[in-house]
């Protein structure tokens, strides 16, 4: 694909990029419907329950989640800085910060897995609507973050191979959009499960 993309003139490249960008935005919209439906289900069950959280269930500890959130939002910042580096053709800045993003994303997923297995009573929780929606929603989000990490590793390898240039880096743009999207979803989930 790389060699093909390089043979396109600027205008054709811009048109190809716009087509892909629109497709990717549509994908993000349908993905947010995905989360939106699950959040609807959560709010519906919450609204139907006489007491919330259900009896015998305690809200998860907000501190671990807060640290984890800072890790994830931090990765959004490093991602942004990495992209700025690419736009200004500073390869070192790009590679350094995208590696940082990958590390932070991995940390977030690890933190979440730790919370799942060591902090929360899994079996007790899975028997309630609170736990069911918690595990499904945060699990779906964690899956998205993991996919995002793989996505970032892929674009990093592609960059090192010289696929992307200062002006032509749609793959990176897509990865950035996806990463910020996952961040925004987490804001909603953090608020719903740990604060509200």
């Amino acid at each position: 694909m790389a060699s093909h993309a390089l043979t396109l003139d600027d205008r054709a490249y811009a048109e190809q990029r716009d087509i892909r960008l629109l497709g990717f935005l549509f994908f993000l919209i349908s993905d947010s419907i995905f989360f939106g439906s699950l959040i609807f289900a959560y709010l519906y069950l919450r609204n139907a329950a006489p007491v919330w959280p259900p009896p015998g269930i305690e809200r998860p500890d907000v501190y671990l989640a807060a640290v984890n959130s800072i890790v994830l939002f931090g990765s959004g910042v490093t991602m942004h800085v990495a992209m700025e580096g690419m736009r200004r053709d500073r390869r070192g800045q790009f590679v350094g910060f995208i590696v940082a993003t990958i590390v932070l994303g991995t940390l977030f997923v690890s933190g979440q897995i730790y919370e799942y297995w060591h902090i929360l009573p899994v079996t007790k929780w899975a028997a309630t609507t609170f736990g069911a929606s918690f595990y499904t929603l945060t699990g779906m989000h964690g899956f998205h973050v993991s996919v995002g990490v793989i996505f970032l590793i892929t674009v990093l390898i592609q960059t090192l191979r010289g696929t992307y240039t200062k002006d032509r880096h749609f793959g990176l743009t897509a990865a950035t959009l996806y990463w910020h999207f996952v961040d925004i979803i987490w804001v909603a989930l953090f608020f719903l499960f740990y604060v509200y």
Partner: protein
Amino acid sequence: MATIELAHPASHIHPAPEGFVRKYIFSLDHKVIAVQYFITSGLFFVLAGLLAELIRVQLMQPNNTVLDPATFNEAFSVHGSAMVWLVVIPILTGGFGNLIMPLQIGARDVAFPWLNMLSFWLFPPAGILLFGSFLLGAPQAGWTEYPPISVLASPGTSMWCAAIFLIGVSSTITGLNFLVTIIKMRAPGMTWTRMPLFVWASAVTAFLNFIATANLSISLAVLFIQRTFHVPFYDETRGGSPVLWQHMFWFYSHPAVYIMILPAFGIVSEIIPTMVRRPIFGYKAIAYSSVAIALVSFMVWAHHMFTSGLAQWIQLPFMIMTMIVAIPTGVKVFSWVASLWGGRIRFTSPLLFVLGFLSTFTFGGITGVMLASVPADVHEHGTYFIVAHLHYVLFGGSMFGVFAGLYYWWPKMTGRMLDERLGKIHFWLMFVAFNCTFLPMHWLGLLGMPRRVATYDPIYWHTNLFVSISAFVLGASMLLFAYNAIHSARYGKRAGPNPWGARTLEWMIPSPPPYYNFKELPVVLSGPYDYGKPLPYRDVDPDMIEAAAMPAY
């Protein structure tokens, strides 16, 4: 590789695919993928149709024992699921959408050919999973799979979830792909209001597909999670709610109703002006009413749930919104009738199917408004009236549209005409048998015969017997089409580029089209339905334009 001069993203002609596998199996060409969709959903249509006949065999006698009750449940559940997800949606979007939409906008392919191939290849595994679920005990709660039955039922229900999930992902991808194609890849000069009406319908369907279907996928995932890990989402005894499933399911499935009918509207809007030789009446009204239907469709889902214990203040707005759907739909129907009015109507087989569509669909639409009214719905809910209504809109609407489209675009797809005489016999047989099958179901329903039961009170016997016999004739009428299709491959008259004398872009190129569709990208100068004026295209092959101006028909 030298730099290629590109004026337009679609103007790049790819090298021709080589080898059998690249050409016919894992093809990236939208026309080949369309044929793959037609063949695959045609097969599923036969299987699901046979299940329907099996259901009717069981219902020939009041206390028949051909099927035991559990098998009967499995038969109608798989029949419904297959007809909706493996036949109507793929044939309209994947089949006609793929075959016609890129040609009509003057593009060389869809925006993401690779994704197009992927969405096709998610489809056969889904069908195999769905029909394979019989091995583990197929789902038994109908195509809607309401909990608690769907939670408690046999392992086949999990296969059902997986199957419909795959279909859901497939249609989400197709929707995204088509909408990008229509927005970004129209030929130079083709503004939104110069697009053929089928493209308008495809665009709105694509929008519904990638918005609503994501929601279906997640509902199925949740049902799957509940069944696998025994978490209590839909379990009333542990704080869950079966009504939650109904909300999530219908929030998708009501827009899905329009996913299943809008492309048929598009097909009808293409055939009428061609066959009556005059501009379509109310181009913008037809185009924008599709958008209106799509927007309203997201606000009507709870009308399926009037007997599920919703509060009255919720029921009223849903009833009103549902009735409002009749307005844009009525705009379309009246526009089509007005287009026929005073035209030089050629009663070809596509047009006959369109007229069949108009009458049966309008009938189904009217019973839809009846069902929207809460007091009537409480009486009719869960009876054969519903079965009659949904078959009038899905079979009488969508499937008549499908056959109209098949007769109309068959020459474009294969290069050969279908036999007109056989087509007309097919139409009349199908039309009469269809009405004999489903019209009496309204009466059965109003008398109180419940749907989804294997045995019934003997007072309903004679009508049911009549319905069953008509259903066999209806099934048999499909053989005529099968014969016609096979016959045409060998003996069909050569179609030439434009056998109907139509004016949309797909008729300006040879039949079947070459893999690159257009040698030069056409330039569009005005709308496609101005019969009697010169053709509105530049840079199409001049011989073809001449052929289009002089209908061979």
